[in-house]
Structures are given as C-alpha cells and as structure tokens.
C-alpha cells in the first residue's frame, strides 16, 4: 500500500508525519532542528528520500539541511547565497533606494527533471539555483532585472515564496514575490518578465493596474495543464489560462477573498482549494469558523468544507506555504495553522481530522506520496 509523508516546518523546528494510504494512523517524529525556524521542507520528486530544509534564525542566520534518507538523518549543506555581481538596490519604505540584503530562504523547490538541482527563493527577493544538491548556489540574476528597482518590501518582508516549474518544459518557471508580483521565465531563468496583467490592487498601490508591486500570496498549477494558473492574491482569487499572460478574478461567492494558500486537486484540474481569511488587518477566519473552500469549476462557485474543522472561536491563520495535496485516490488535502494544528482530509476535503494539534506555529506543509 502507498504511504504518505507530510513535512511540516514550524517556528520552532520541523516535524515529519507519516501514515499508510488510509491516512488514519499517524506516526510523528520531531522536532528536528529544535528551536530553529523551519520555513520550508520539500522532497525531490525524482528521489523522494532526498529532502531539503530551510533552517533560519534572526540571530544565527541561514542553514540549508539535506537528508538522503527521508528525514531520519540530516547534513548541513551550502548556505552562501551571494547576489550576482553588484547587488544593486530596490525601493525602500522611505522612497529611497536600498541595497539588496540576504535574510533567509523562504521556499525550496527541487527540480522535476534533474536529481541534484534545487531552486531556493530568498528574502530579499531573488532566485537561487544549485546543481549539486545544495552544496553551492548561484543566483538567477535576470529576475531582478525585471524592474527590481521598483520592488518594495511589504510588512512581511520581500520574500520570493513561490516557485512553480512547468512539468512539460523545465525552462519555464513561475515565481511570486510578496509586494512585487508574479514573474515568468521561458529560458531557464536567464530572462524574466512580470506576469501581472489583470491583477488589481485598489488599496495597496497608487496605480491599481501597475506592472509590478502586487502582493501575490501563492500560485498553484495542475501538472496536466501547466498553462492554467490559480492565484491567491493579497485580496482576490485569480485565474490565468495563458500562462500568466492575463488574469481574471474568480473569487465568486467566497465569504472573503483574502487569504494565503491555494492548491489544486491531484486528479481534478478544475478543483481548487483556498482558506478564506477575514482581512489583511484581521488574519483569522471569518466568523471564527475555520473553513476550507473548494471550487469544482476552476473558481467562481465555491463550497465550504467544514466537517471536522472548528466552527466557532477559531482565530488561527493558514500561511501561504502551509497547504498541500497528495496524489492518492481519493486525493488527500493537508494544511497547517498558526495555532499548531495540522489537518488532513483523506477524501478531497469532505472530512477533516487533525493529525496533530499542538505544534509550534506552522509555516509550511508539504506532502509526499510514497510507493
């Protein structure tokens, strides 16, 4: 029987949750790297026992950890993230230009085609690539040439948090940056262009249709239709059917279209999931009810999924990297909260149960489907 392995990054360490294909009985290990912030962990689709973890601390800086045995043991690998050439500057809060400064890695994305290649999304926003399993890193500096001097950090930092690789063309990569927007390369990272046409930021930007500056929270894609993208923006759920050339809003009947994660069902490319959050100033679910919303129509028509989720007095948040889907049938959906719960649904969202209730605040959730 297939198994699943859920990789959970938290404010105070990493946890690994495993179960068989029924997804009812869970074994939990951790905390790994106790006391450190683990922004993200992810496994290689080519070698599932190869895991990467971003281990960070405001005090002691960045460490990248790598495992070759599914998280049983780890080794620290390269952590020299040097901006290419003269780093240059970006827009700063006071209107001046400010030098790029490395702070941390928000997201790690192993290649779909090259076993030793992995991408890393940084704050201050930049994309790094390693071709030797994380030992050394090189910046794909063409990204910052895409009007980087106009990017300005939001309150949460100018992090590159989303990396989506086209499974049919590894030269095409989508990335998203807080308060800068979405960008695409078609030449393996040499050149990039903003893909923000159709996004509207009425209250966040002086020009609501600006080419860059939109606060994209997450982008999701189904591997069978790599030109169709779904986006949770600061406000608004958006959809593009032409690889980001044009976006249209599909928020429909959601109780709030603010939120962080968005994901796509493993077997139904038009079934998508979001977790509405009340507002940018109140980062908790509307009415104190933790509801995942599912659309089976690629947006616009949404249904609340509540069975097994708290429906009163719930004031947690679900962060952008804290939702994932497995590829079993039926598809499993997972998300973690800032209250330390990790919820799983083994039936595409119809029923939920907590795998674990009392972890530190969850920063990221990824899941691997194992043979």
């Amino acid at each position, binding site marked *: 029987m297939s198994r699943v392995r859920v990789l959970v990054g938290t404010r105070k360490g990493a946890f690994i949750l495993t179960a068989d294909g029924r997804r009812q009985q869970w074994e939990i290990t951790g905390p790994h790297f106790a006391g450190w912030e683990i922004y993200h962990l992810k496994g290689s689709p080519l070698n599932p026992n190869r895991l990467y973890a971003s281990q960070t601390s405001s005090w*002691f800086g960045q460490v990248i950890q790598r495992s070759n045995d599914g998280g049983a043991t780890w080794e*620290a690998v390269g*952590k020299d993230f040097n901006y290419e050439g003269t780093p240059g500057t970006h827009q700063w809060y006071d209107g001046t230009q400010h030098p790029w400064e490395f702070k941390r890695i928000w997201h790690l994305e192993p290649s779909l085609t090259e076993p030793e290649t992995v991408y890393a999304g940084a704050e201050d926003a930049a994309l790094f690539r390693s071709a030797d399993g994380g030992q050394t890193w090189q910046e794909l500096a063409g990204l910052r040439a895409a009007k980087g001097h106009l990017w300005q950090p939001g309150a949460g930092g100018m992090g590159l948090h989303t990396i989506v690789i086209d499974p049919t063309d590894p030269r095409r990569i989508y990335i998203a940056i807080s308060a800068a927007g979405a960008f695409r390369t078609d030449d393996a990272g040499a050149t990039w262009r903003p893909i923000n046409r159709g996004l509207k930021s009425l209250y966040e930007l002086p020009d609501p249709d600006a080419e860059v500056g939109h606060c994209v929270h997450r982008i999701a894609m189904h591997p069978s239709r790599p030109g169709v993208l779904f986006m949770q923006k600061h406000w608004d759920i958006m959809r593009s059917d032409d690889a980001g050339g044009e976006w249209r809003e599909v928020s429909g009947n959601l109780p709030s279209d603010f939120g962080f994660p968005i994901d796509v069902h493993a077997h139904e490319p038009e079934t998508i999931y979001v977790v509405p959050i009340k507002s940018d100033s109140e980062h908790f679910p509307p009415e104190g009810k933790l509801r995942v919303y599912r659309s089976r129509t690629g947006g616009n028509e949404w249904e609340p999924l509540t069975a097994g989720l708290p429906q009163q007095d719930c004031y947690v948040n679900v962060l952008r990297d804290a939702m994932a889907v497995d590829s079993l049938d039926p598809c499993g959906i997972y998300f973690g909260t800032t209250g330390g719960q990790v919820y799983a649904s083994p039936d595409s969202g119809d029923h939920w149960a907590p795998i674990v209730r009392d972890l530190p605040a969850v920063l990221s959730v990824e899941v691997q489907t194992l043979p």
Partner: protein
Amino acid sequence: MIRVVLPAHLRTLAEVEREVLLALEGPVTLRSILEALEACHPVLRGTIRDPVTHKRRPLVRFFACEQDWSHASSDAPLPAAVADGSEPLLIVGAMAGG
C-alpha cells in the same frame, strides 16, 4: 585550552555540548577563537559572524569575565583568564525581549 560556551541553537546545529574546548597558538582574541571554532565546526561558519566581512551578526554578543566584548576589536587580546582557560568566552544570542 580555551573554553567557549555556545548558545543552545548553535549547540544543536554543531552537535556539541554547552562548552567547546579549543587549542590555540598565539594571541587569544575574538578573531583567533572564532577562526579556530569555525575550523573545528565548519557548520558554524556564518552563524556568529559574516563569512566574508567577519562582522559580528547583529544579535550575537560576546561576554567574558563579566564584560561585554561585543563591540571590541576582534584583534584585541581577551582577558588572561580566558587565555588560560579559567574563564570561558560566552557567545550569546541577544535577548529577544518581550
């Protein structure tokens, strides 16, 4: 032997006990201690000081003999009690406040 006390996060990272012993030749300074420490435990490179500029990370402090050496020159001789091992050099994560 020089005694260096590490903060908890760096102990777990380097997989060492609270106190690390280092053999040093020549002047006992912050620079010579950190270079010896990083040579013995390469995973600590970049966690205490910038790996290129060697500037102390902003939220790291150096204490010795009840004195704050955080702002001292990295080439200043540390107290004799640190050099002879009767007192440790404390590497400390600054208080988070709250």
